[in-house]
């Protein structure tokens, strides 16, 4: 009587941690989460200067979702 297990071969699955992809995702996460949850004019001030702080465009545009995600808002 044959032992079935002797005919089976084990398969090893390997997956290397993709550091470059992780770095790209970390940049995307940092930028998008800051714009969405924390920006008070800082990002657009790079282009529009002080006016960006007065208009607070991204804050106002993302206003409802900022509240919905639980981030502090006014």
């Amino acid at each position: 009587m044959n032992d079935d297990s002797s005919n089976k071969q084990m398969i090893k699955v390997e997956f290397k941690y993709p550091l470059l992809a992780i770095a790209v995702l970390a940049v995307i996460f940092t930028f998008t989460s800051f714009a969405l949850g924390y920006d008070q004019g800082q990002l657009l001030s790079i282009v529009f200067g002080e006016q960006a702080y007065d208009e607070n465009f991204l804050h106002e545009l993302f206003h409802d979702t900022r509240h919905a995600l639980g981030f502090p808002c006014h």
Partner: protein
Amino acid sequence: MILNIVAVALLAGIASGAIYGLMNIAFVTPYIDRAVEIESSRVGESVDIAYRVWQKQGAILAGLLAGIAYSSLFSIVYAYMGSRNPQGITIMRGIIFALIIWLVLYLMPALKYPANPPAVGDPETIYYRQSIYITYMLISGIAALALALLRIKLVTVMGSSRYIKDVAIIASYALIMIASYILMPPNQDTIDMDEDILVGFRVASATTSLVLWLLIGLITSLLWSRTGLIRRRMSML
């Protein structure tokens, strides 16, 4: 391969974020509209309808952005889990993982600093409230991450008695969060809002956030495990 991992994260984020944006408009925005009406009436003004329409359109864009942001974070963690245990990349694990991240990054901060509708926060304290919120969120996230890495180390070093380690890890996280809850300063803004709007808003916020994370977990793990987009090297032993 690098492109595939980023593409999968973006795809899962856009799909989840689109649904999240629509859910917010259906379930969260009605509470925000009522709170904005109260906010306007307090200063003797009427609601700027055109402005509110613009903000609601922004909610779709913001939903997509939230999906992309959170999906990127999810993929970073999911890829690490996959590298530790390539055979453990399953849909169920993806969903459980997403649930844990929601508990750590939404529910824990919300227990100390609950989500509030408009007309509750004082614009003068926005930077202070942001700093205490992100600090608490970072404490929760870093504690969970450190303990998860410690658990991996313990399993490698000590082998069995897995459940004792899990209980010890969860108890350690609970202790850190209880201590942080006590030590972190409160949000000092006065909560002056109708109870039904406040509670309804918070329940809707927690629910749509949970669904967002679960969708990200489901779609990411589906794309990882069922499409062949993320290839893993297989060899015979």
